[in-house]
Structure formats: C-alpha cells, structure tokens
C-alpha cells in the first residue's frame, strides 16, 4: 500500500501532536473530568440501589456491598402524580418536543428565504429587528401570553380571538407548542438566514434562468442546501424544549405536564423519596442524552454557529 501525501501529513501532524501532549495537562484534565462526572455517577448508582439503602447509606458504599434492583425504575414508571403516571409525562414530553422543534424551523425558513433572496425595501431593517428580538427574556412573555390564550384578543370592542378553552386541557398542547414556536423564531431566523444567504448567487440565478419560481427554488434548492444548519438547529431546539421547565410550568397542567415539570414537583413534595427522584431523573435524561450522543457533531456545529439561547 502506498502512503498518500494526505495520510502522510496526517501522521506527521499526529506525531507533532504527541510531542505537544503533556502528562500534567492530561492529569489535570482527568481530575477535572472526574470531578465533573462524580455527581451524576452518584445519582446513577443510587437509582439502582434498593430504596431503603439509598436513604440509609451513602452510594459509595455500593461498591463494597453491591445490591442491584430495577424496582425503583418500575415504581417510578408507574408512579402517579397529579393524576398521571411518570411514563405518561415522558410521552407528553415527546408530544410537546417534536412539533415544537419542527414548527419554528419551517416558519423561520420561509421568512429567512425572503430576507436572503428577495430584494425588497426594509429587508435589512427587518433582519436586524428579528435578530434584536433575541434580547427579550422569556419572563417578559409569560403573563401576557397566558392572558392571551385564556382571555383571547379583543380589538376596539370586537373579539378577534376568543382564546382557547378555559382550562388548558381543552386545548391540549396548543399553548406550549405555540409559545415554544414563537420564542424560538428570532434565533431560528438568524441561523437559517445565515445558512440560506451563504448559497452562491450563481446557483440561485441559474435556477431562475431555468424558469423556476421562488416556490420551486425554496423547496428544491434552498431547503436541501440548508439541511446541515437545519439539523444543527433542530437538535438544539429539541434539547431546549425537552429540558424546558419554565414554559411547561406556566402553560401545562395536570394531564399535559412533561417530565421536567413532574420532576420539579416531586423534588418539592417528595424531596426525601430518593428512589423516585434518582430513577425519575434518569428516565428524563435518557432521550436527550441519546440524541446528544448520536448527533454530537451537529450539536457542536450549531453551538459554534451561535445557537445559544439564554
């Protein structure tokens, strides 16, 4: 087998990297990584210990006297809080998260395409204004939105929007979906605009000369070319919505609650029932961790492209 120049240079790079690596840096990194991992490890180990053991002896004694049980998970899975089981709240989380990750992406793509590729007056102002809306903290939106959903909108004495059914059960997940979609739009528009604007102008012109309209270009050209950014943003939004507590606290109740809300409730009411909290926490983080590990590359790329939501 011949060594290609690229492989050779990669090997040289690897060798030079090795000379740079220092044992002190490695030791420091390992120690810090250990400190960072121990808290999670403690909870994880505890979740498999018998309920009585968790509250009577430290989890570190497990390694001397191992006793493993899946009972905590079974009990947590079927535990009823505010009328629903923990397993149902997991389904609720999924039901909230998938649509709430998709909606803002599609709507932001539409407006981002117009800003990037349709020449109209005020498009720069529009873009800057949308970018600037990222400034608004979620806390500013909650109360007015809650009033809007429940009380509707009345303009000059005419009821334009009667609001959703009085209890949030009647409208299902609508309030959470809509709130997440709206609050995600500024960041989504910003990121997707950057992706769409970086498509070479010649490509777009060629498509226009071939007679394609904006609808066709959007669907056949812009959308496929933006897929990497869409993927990055989608993962980010998925994790953000799945892990959200604030929106869930305000806009869900009882039957609609996601797992984060139930966990927060249990932490308050059942703060000493560690068999519930340990297993519940891991049930809540399994899906985001799977998404994270499987799609890490996209996630890091999204972070580097500015996908941070404070």
């Amino acid at each position, binding site marked *: 087998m011949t060594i290609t120049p690229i492989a050779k240079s990669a090997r040289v790079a690897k060798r030079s990297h090795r000379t740079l690596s220092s044992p002190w840096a490695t030791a*420091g990194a390992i120690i810090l990584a250990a400190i960072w991992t121990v808290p999670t490890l403690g909870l994880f180990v505890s979740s498999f210990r018998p309920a009585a053991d968790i509250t*009577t002896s430290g989890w570190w004694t497990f390694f001397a006297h191992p006793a493993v049980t899946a009972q905590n998970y079974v009990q947590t899975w079927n535990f009823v809080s505010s009328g629903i089981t923990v397993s149902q709240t997991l389904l609720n989380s999924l039901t909230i998260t998938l649509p709430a990750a998709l909606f803002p992406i599609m709507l932001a793509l539409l407006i981002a395409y117009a800003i990037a590729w*349709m020449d109209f007056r005020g498009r720069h102002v529009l873009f800057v204004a949308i970018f600037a809306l990222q400034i608004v903290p979620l806390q500013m939106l909650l109360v007015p939105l809650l009033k809007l959903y429940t009380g509707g909108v009345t303009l000059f004495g005419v009821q334009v929007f009667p609001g959703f059914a009085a209890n949030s059960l009647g409208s299902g*997940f609508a309030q959470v*979906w809509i709130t997440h979609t709206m609050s995600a739009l500024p960041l989504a528009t910003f990121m997707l605009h950057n992706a769409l604007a970086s498509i070479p102008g010649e490509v777009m012109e060629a498509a226009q000369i071939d007679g394609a309209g904006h609808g066709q270009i959007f669907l056949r050209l812009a959308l496929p070319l933006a897929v990497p950014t869409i993927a990055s943003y989608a993962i980010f939004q998925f994790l953000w919505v799945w892990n959200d507590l*604030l929106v869930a606290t305000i806009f869900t109740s009882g039957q609609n609650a996601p797992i984060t809300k139930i*966990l927060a409730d249990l*932490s308050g009411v059942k703060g000493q029932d560690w068999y519930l909290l340990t297993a*519940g926490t891991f049930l809540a983080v399994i899906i985001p961790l799977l998404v994270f590990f499987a799609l890490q590359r996209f996630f890091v790329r999204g972070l580097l492209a500015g996908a941070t939501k404070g």
Partner: protein
Amino acid sequence: MQAFFSWLSGLPQLAQIPIVILAFLLVVGLIILLIDVAPRPGKAYTWLRLALAVGVPVGVLALLGLERGAAPVFLLGALLGGGLFLLDARSAKGHGRLIQLALFVSPALLLLLVGLVWPTVRTIVSAFLDKTGTTFVGLDNFVWIFKSGGSGGLTSLVNTIIWVLIAPIAATAIGLVYALWVDRSRGEKILKLLIFMPMAISLVGASIIFKFLYDYRQGNQIGLLNQVMVSLGLTPVNWLQSYPLNMFLLIIILVWAQAGFAMVILSAAIKGIPTELPEAAQIDGATAAKQFFYITIPTIRPTIVVVWITISITSLKVYDIIAVTTAGFNNTSVLGYEMVRQFSLFPPQSGHSAALAVLIFVLVIPFIAYNARSLGRQA
C-alpha cells in the same frame, strides 16, 4: 382552530404528534404552492391573486375564531388584502411579487408581533400598574423591589447580581483551563464528552443531581459533600439552608452545566490559533505560562468575551435551579424565579411580577448590545 386543538387533545399522545405535524406541513405546503403559482401570467392567475389577497386574511380571521357577527373586522381584513392586490398589480417589478413576499414573511412576522413584541410592550405597561392591572401607580412596583427586604424583591435582585458576577467567570475560566488541558492530552474526545454531557441534561436534572450531593441528615450521611466533611472530622452542614453559602452552592450547579459550553467554544478558538505563533514563541524560549498570557489569551480574547456574555445572560434568567432545589426559601430567590412566584401568589402580584421581568430585560440589554457591537465589528 379551537375545535381542531380540542379534538386533537382527546386523542392519545402518539397520535397527536403525526397529526399536528401533518396539518402543519399541509399549511406550509399550501403556502409554498401559492408562492409558486402567484406570479404566473394570464387572466386566470390575476383572479387567483385577487382571491388570495382577499381570501387569506379573511380565512385566517375565521380560523382564529372571529364571530360571524363581527363583519367590520372581516371587511377590514378583506380591504387590506384588496389593497395588497392593487399595490401588487401596479408594482413595477412584476405581478405577484408582493403577494409572494407576503406569503413568505407574514406567518413568522405575525407570530413575532403577537408572541414577542406585543407581550413585551404589555409587560412594560404592567410594570407601572397595580396588581389589578387597571390603576397607574408610577414607579411603585420598582420602589417595592428595592424596599421589600423579606418578601423577596431586593433579595432576588442582590442574589441575581451575585449570580451574574460569579457564575459566568467561573464557568468561562474552568472551560478555558480545561480546553487548554485537553488540547495537550490524550483521549481528548472522551475527556471533552465528560465535561460536555451536562449540556444535554436539563437544569432540572442537574439540580436534582446536586440536591443529592448536598443532602444533609442526622446519622449516616448520603450526600457526598457531607460525607467528605465527616471524613475530615468536621460536623455535617445543612448546606441548602445556610445563607449565604447556599447561594454559592446553587451557583455551582449552573457552572457545572455551562462549563462544557465554554469549553467547546474556547477549544475551537484555541485550535484556530495559527501554529506558527506558539512555535515561534517556543523557539524564542517563552515558557508555557508566558505563551498562555501573551499569545493564547490575546488571540482568543473576543471568543472569551462572547462566552462570558452568553453565560451572563443565562445567569440573569435562571429559574429552574431555584424552583427545583429551594423554591426560593432561605434567601435564595433570584429575579427569574421571583417573577414567577409573585405571579403565582394569591392574589397574583402582577405589577411586582412585571417589574421584576422588566428588570431582567434591562439588565440583559448591555450584554446583548456589547455582543451585537462586537459581532458588527467582526463583519
């Protein structure tokens, strides 16, 4: 629309997901189809454009649930649509272009106006009204924040300032040091992953993990921190009830969750430093410490600032950590939490709540302004 959502809410969750997604994609598909056919030449398409311009606003109003009796509003919608059609027909740049533009822009724009701009204005107004939302009270709500010792306003403001002073610097510094270390150690990928993993865990999960770590009880300790105290021959401490220590312990949770973010961004910046720089410094005999302070830090300074600002903004809005661990007791409340708590009191203190939200907003502005300025400078 209400009928649709209320029908949907009766279905099992797993059926709701595909149905709502399908319905949404149908609407978006229809928008794209209309965008595509709007500019076509021919009389039939002119009629189609007119029908679109008038029909879409009227249809949307009907979907929102406007009463049939409210004819003037429907008429207004139709007139606005008709106006758009006329403007479009006279446009020098060709028929259909304005209608296309409206179709592209209006769904997101309407949601931004209704969901972000209007609530922001509304909250600012509420901050100057009393709890019933009807009487103007001037700056009373803000005065309350600074005067209310025991009831949470001032405590939460002071605590938030402490959060913002400590958490971002700690997380950025740890992220930077770790990024430097992993850059020169083996097994970089796995080591990075371990620090990075908390980003995927919710703050709710992180808070429970640390609540367990901080656990305090008589007899055998099950919290690691108190076990360490016992092993050192000290008495265990009820961490989350001792102010101001509890604040710092809660701040650690955010640092734990955010250091990975800082590390990833700073690591990418460090790898972007041209290799000639450190090499030249090495030949000149610079020590590792000198290289760090004279080359690494100045080169990646803009990135450090961006990371620090981003975590500062996150610290300003903290809610989850307080809600899960202490519920604001023992002087641990922060603005983001107190705002929700004031609103959930009975009767809701909507004026206080709004004033606290406005305060977060005002405190966020300088950070974002700085970020935007440095973004502008780079461009």
